[in-house]
């Protein structure tokens, strides 16, 4: 049970200096405060509301209300004094105390119009502080002062959205059954019973499952099932190429051997020996020139590359060199100076300059030191410029040689082409001659046949050689592609294991969302049923009519409907007493279901209730007070005989509130 233990007022309206304790003396937790109308019952309620929320909800017209500071305290204070209005509410919750303390400072000055003292707020709003400490120790107190923290603490116990369900005004039920109020009640119930907790957790899990689902979709997009087919194809192609080259490699020696045999046979045949010898000589020359040509092409590439760079940089090279020359000519690049000599002159305190024999006085020494410093900086620049000057000049010189080098290159290229062409032509001529050669000798070699075979073998060898080279190039390209694809496979495999992890997480988040939503729904249903049942039970006990009402229903929006035996909705036709009973019943049911058994403070608890209902309600409230603190504010008329018969000897305390003779403040309370 959460209980109000004490309320302390300082300068709060007519409660100038007042402490009210609510000690527990017996099994019933009803505390009665009696006061005539106008004494301060509603102010008492407003005091609690101001303490918790900074608002006095039961003031009818703020624009015409007095300031909250006690008027006599203002008049008694001196000019420039600072007075404080404070209300402090101490509650107990199991093994701890929670103290809500709100204060507002006022400074005292003179009103120029009335020439009376007036109080002016020193800050635009009041300050709330909440303290929490275990019952057995004040040393471990936790203090909350930030707006967020204090609001959270207030909300935990007395949610402002449904303040009227804790601090009940029996005279003012007109908004109690309002639709807007029902919405707030529902929200508050969900907040107190932690349905909102389930809702938020479920939304978060749903958000996470959407996130995982998106990540998974992205990873799916990266997988390429054709990659393995591509790898297989490239590997097959490479195998074919390698096998082809192996065949070529095995066939070539055979062909080369046969070629050598044919050459030998032809060389051995006297009538054409010269031709064959010439051919062999030309073949050799051809191979040599071909090899030189390959080397030449490499040099040609280098020539092109070198001059491409040089010509690109030429403008900058030229301008840098011109700049260096200019500086040299104008003495801006410092002359070479022997720094060591100058240092020796300084360190050895030489009296006269060895160059001009001038006196080396302090001024001269200072000048030499400055010179050394300057040299230090400029020497670096000087050295650098000098070091690159040579390179720049070489570059310019090389550019000038371009035309002559180019001419050489072109001539060389032409030479190789022409020479090789010449040799090829002569070789073709020899081959043609030999392939049509006839002579009268019988039984000796058939030259033309040998030559034709030779030509075929040579062509075949050339083709195989080219094929071999092309295959090797292709194998290299395929290997590069293979490496790339295998990298992708590794990436995919990594992706696949991440995908599996994501799939598992996604399925768990989805399960969590479903489960949390189900629990939330079950809890909402349970809460509604519980509130409905408890409201109905208490309502039936409170009213005298036992045969009229059939049932009570609460819809999903927490709006109540009471039905008679013909199942007609009678909510709008309830009497004042019945409305009051319904309001009480629902309030108490909300308290019970919220899981937080908070106190109820009621102004005019039975004001609108008459006759037998009064007794019923009083008894029912007494019964309820065994497990719940109820503070009731009666007028003497309201505290009628029926009520006093029930409460006089049972409740925890009965106190009378009265004003002082000057009616400016509440008298000290007596039990």
């Amino acid at each position, binding site marked *: 049970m959460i209980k109000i233990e004490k309320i302390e007022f300082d300068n709060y309206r007519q409660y100038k200096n007042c402490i009210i304790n609510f000690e527990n003396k017996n099994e019933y937790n009803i505390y009665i405060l009696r006061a005539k109308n106008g004494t301060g019952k509603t102010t008492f309620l407003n005091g609690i509301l101001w303490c918790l929320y900074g608002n006095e909800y039961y003031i009818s017209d703020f624009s015409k209300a007095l300031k909250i500071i006690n008027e006599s305290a203002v008049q008694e204070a001196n000019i420039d004094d600072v007075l404080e209005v404070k209300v402090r509410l101490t509650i107990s919750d199991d093994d701890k105390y929670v103290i809500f303390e709100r204060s507002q400072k006022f400074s005292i000055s003179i009103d120029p119009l009335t020439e009376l003292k007036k109080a002016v707020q020193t800050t635009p709003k009041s300050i709330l502080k909440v303290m929490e400490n275990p019952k057995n120790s004040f040393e471990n107190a936790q203090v909350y002062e930030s707006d967020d923290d204090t609001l959270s603490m207030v909300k935990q116990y007395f949610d402002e959205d449904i303040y009227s369900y804790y601090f009940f005004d029996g005279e003012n039920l007109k908004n109690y059954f309002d639709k807007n109020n029902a919405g707030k009640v529902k929200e508050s119930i969900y907040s107190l019973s*932690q349905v909102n907790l389930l809702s938020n*957790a479920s939304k978060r899990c749903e958000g*996470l499952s959407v996130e995982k689902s998106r990540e998974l979709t992205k990873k799916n997009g990266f997988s390429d099932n054709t990659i393995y087919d591509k790898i297989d194809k490239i590997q097959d192609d490479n195998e074919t190429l390698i096998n082809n080259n192996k065949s070529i490699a095995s066939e070539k020696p055979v062909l080369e051997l046969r070629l050598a045999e044919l050459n030998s046979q032809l060389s051995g045949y006297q009538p054409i020996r010269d031709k064959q010898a010439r051919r062999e000589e030309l073949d050799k020359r051809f191979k040599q020139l071909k090899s030189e040509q390959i080397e030449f092409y490499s040099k040609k590439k280098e020539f092109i590359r070198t001059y491409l760079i040089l010509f690109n940089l030429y403008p900058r090279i030229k301008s840098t060199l011109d700049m260096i020359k200019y500086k040299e000519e104008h003495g801006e690049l410092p002359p070479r100076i022997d720094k060591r000599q100058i240092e020796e002159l300084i360190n050895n305190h030489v009296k006269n300059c060895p160059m001009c024999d001038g006196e080396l006085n302090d001024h001269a020494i200072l000048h030499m030191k400055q010179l050394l410093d300057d040299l230090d900086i400029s020497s670096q620049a000087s050295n650098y410029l000098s070091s690159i000057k040579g390179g720049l000049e070489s570059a310019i010189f090389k550019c000038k040689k371009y035309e002559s080098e180019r001419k050489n290159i072109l001539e060389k290229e032409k030479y190789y082409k022409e020479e090789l062409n010449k040799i090829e032509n002569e070789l073709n001529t020899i081959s043609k001659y030999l392939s049509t050669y006839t002579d009268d000798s019988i039984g000796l070699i058939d030259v033309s046949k040998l030559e034709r075979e030779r030509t075929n073998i040579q062509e075949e060898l050339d083709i195989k050689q080219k094929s071999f080279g092309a295959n090797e190039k292709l194998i290299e390209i395929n290997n590069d592609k293979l490496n790339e694809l295998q990298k992708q496979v590794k990436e995919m495999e990594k992706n696949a294991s991440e995908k*599996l992890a994501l*799939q*598992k997480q996604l399925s*768990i*988040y989805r399960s969590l969302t*479903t*489960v949390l939503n189900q629990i939330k729904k079950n809890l909402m249903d349970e809460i509604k049923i519980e509130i409905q049942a408890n409201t109905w039970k208490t309502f039936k006990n409170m009213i005298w009519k036992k045969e009229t009402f059939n049932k009570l229903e609460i819809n999903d929006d927490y709006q109540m409907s009471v039905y008679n035996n013909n199942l007609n909705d009678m909510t709008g036709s309830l009497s004042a007493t019945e409305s009051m009973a319904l309001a009480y019943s629902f309030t108490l049911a909300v308290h019970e279901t919220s899981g937080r058994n908070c106190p109820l403070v009621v102004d005019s608890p039975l004001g609108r209730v008459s006759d037998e209902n009064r007794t019923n309600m009083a008894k029912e409230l007494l019964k309820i007070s065994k497990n719940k603190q109820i503070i009731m504010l009666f007028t003497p008329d309201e505290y009628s005989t029926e009520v006093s018969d029930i409460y006089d000897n049972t409740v925890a305390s009965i106190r009378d509130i009265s004003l002082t003779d000057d009616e400016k403040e509440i008298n000290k309370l007596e039990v």
Partner: protein
Amino acid sequence: MTMSKKIINEVEKIDKDEPFKKLVLDILDLESKGTHYFKSKCEELVKKYIDDNRVGVISNDKD
């Protein structure tokens, strides 16, 4: 904020194994603390649950 008995009872009633129920309670506890690192902590809890219980990919059809 401590978890209400009603919620704890409802979690007990769900048709899942004990580790899953504990996961639900841990997540609710995390939410009740209002931490701004809910996401990272929740992911940690779920990954631990998957590793500790060797969870496979569950079909959510019946969910």
